[in-house]
C-alpha cells in the first residue's frame, strides 16, 4: 500500500475510534448494505496502557489503562478490514472494521460521503462548541486607571 494511502487509512481509522458510543454502527446500518465477510478476529474487549511523559516531555510512565474493542474481518473479495474503537461496543468495532474494508473497495467514495464525512463533521462540531465555550472563559486583563494621573 502506498504511503499516502496509509495516511488516509490512518485518518479514517483514528476518526472511527473516537466516534461516540453507538454512532459507527448507526451510521453504517443506515447505508443498508450488509456485505458478507468472515471474521479473522471476532470483536474482543480489552485494554491498552496509556502512557504519559514526566514533565510532559521527559521519560514515559504508565498513566493507566483505557478500554478498547477491536476486530478484524475479510470481505468476500478478500479485502481485510480492521476495527479499533474506544470503549466496549462490539457492534461499533464491527462497523469500523467493515467501513475500513469497504474504504479499500470501489464503494469507498459512497462510504466516505455517507459515513466518514458526517461522523467527522459531528465530532468537529462538538469540539468546536466546547472550544468556543472555553474561549468565552478566557480572562481579559485590564489595568485600572490610577487616580493621581
Amino acid at each position, binding site marked *: 500500500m502506498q504511503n499516502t494511502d496509509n495516511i488516509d487509512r490512518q485518518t479514517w481509522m483514528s476518526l472511527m475510534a473516537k466516534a461516540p458510543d453507538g454512532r459507527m454502527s448507526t451510521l453504517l446500518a443506515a447505508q443498508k448494505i450488509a456485505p458478507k465477510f468472515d471474521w479473522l478476529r471476532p470483536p474482543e474487549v480489552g*485494554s491498552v496502557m496509556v502512557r504519559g511523559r514526566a514533565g510532559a516531555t521527559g521519560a514515559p*510512565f504508565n498513566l493507566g489503562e483505557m478500554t478498547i474493542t477491536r476486530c478484524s474481518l475479510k470481505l468476500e473479495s478478500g479485502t481485510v478490514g480492521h476495527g479499533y474503537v474506544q470503549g466496549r461496543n462490539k457492534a461499533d468495532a464491527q462497523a469500523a472494521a467493515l467501513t475500513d474494508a469497504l474504504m479499500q473497495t470501489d464503494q469507498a467514495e459512497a462510504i466516505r460521503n455517507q459515513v466518514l464525512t458526517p461522523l467527522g463533521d459531528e465530532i468537529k462540531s462538538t469540539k468546536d462548541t466546547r472550544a*468556543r465555550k472555553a474561549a468565552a472563559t478566557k480572562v481579559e486583563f485590564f489595568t485600572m486607571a490610577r487616580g493621581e494621573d
Partner: protein
Amino acid sequence: MYVAVKGGERAIENAHAWLAEERRGDVAIAELSVEQIKSQLTIAVNRVMAEGSLYDPDLAALAMKQSRGDLIEAIFLIRAYRTTLPRFGNTRPIETSEMECERRISATYKDLPGGQVLGPTFDYTHRLLDFKLAAEGAPTSAPERKASGDLVPHVAEFLNQEGLIEEAPRDDTTPPDLTREPLELPAERALRLQALARADEGFTLGMAYSTQRGYGRTHAFVGELRIGQVAVEMDIPELGFAIEVGEITVTECETVNQFKGSKSEPPQFTRGYGLVFGQSERKSISMSLVDRALRWEELGEDNVGAPAQDAEFVLYHGDNIQATGFLEHIKLPHYVDFQSELELVRKMRREAGADQMPEAAE
C-alpha cells in the same frame, strides 16, 4: 490464622438481598440511571477512573451505582474488572502539548500565549449552597466566543528559553509497570508517577499539604494547570502504522519550585509533575507536589525526614484498594486468632499475679 468455618450462607444471601433493596432506595422515587451518573456526577466518575486506573466513564458510573456512591468500593470494582481484560498493548505517550484545552491557567505568568482560560471551574464561586438546584430548572447554556484553534504551548517552555528551569529531556525508555511487576524500592520516577496517578486523592492531598506546611518544604507555584482532551495513539502491528485508538480527558499540572542549586546544577527552578485521568484538578496539583518532594535525592537535597520525602511511606500507603483491603479484613472473622490472644493475655496475667490483685473497681 485462618480456619475454614461453615455456616452463615443464608445470612449472607439475605444481607445481599437487603443491600440491593437499600441500594434502590425508595421505589416511589425514580431510579438513578448510569447515564445520569455519567453525565451529571462527572467529577466523581473521573475520580473512579483515575484511581481505578481504567478510563471508561460508563464502567465508572456503573460501579458508582453498584457501590451506592461509595467511591472506594467503586474503585475496587473497577480494579477487579480491569484484571479480567486482555491487554492489547501500550500506547505512545500522550502529547499534552497538543491538548484541546478547556481550562488552562498559570499562577506564575499573567500574560502568556494562549491566555488564562478558566473553563468550567468551581474557583471564584461563593461556595454558597444553591437552592435553585434543589428544584428542577431549565437547562442553562454557556456563552460562546470565537476560538483561535491554535495549540497552547506549555508554560515551562518559556522558562526554558532563559535556561531558568530544569529541562525534561525526551527519553524513550520503557517504563516499569506496577500492574505487571510488584512495586519495589528504590522506585524510579516513572514508577512513582504511575503509583501517584492512581493513588487515593485524599492521601495525596494530605501528603502534598504536609510539604506546604513545612514537612520537607517545597514552596511550589502552579506553573501551569491544564484540562482538556488528548488523542491516544498506538502502534498497530497488523497495520504497520499508528492510529488514534481514542481520546481522553486529562488534567495536567506542572509546579515550579525554587532550587538553590547543587554541585552539578546552577540555581534554577525545578519541576513537579501531575497527570491524572479526567477533570481531577486537586489530585493533579497534589501529585505534582508529592512528585517534587520525592525527587530530593536526585536533586541533591537534604532528606529532612519528612513523610512526603519517604518513597516507601508514600508509595506503599497511597493505594486506597490495598489500604482498604488490609484495613477492612480485620472485621472478618478472626475467632481463632483472638482465642489464642485471649489465652496469652490470661497466661500473662497469671504470671504477673494479676489474678491475686484486688480489682480496682471493688
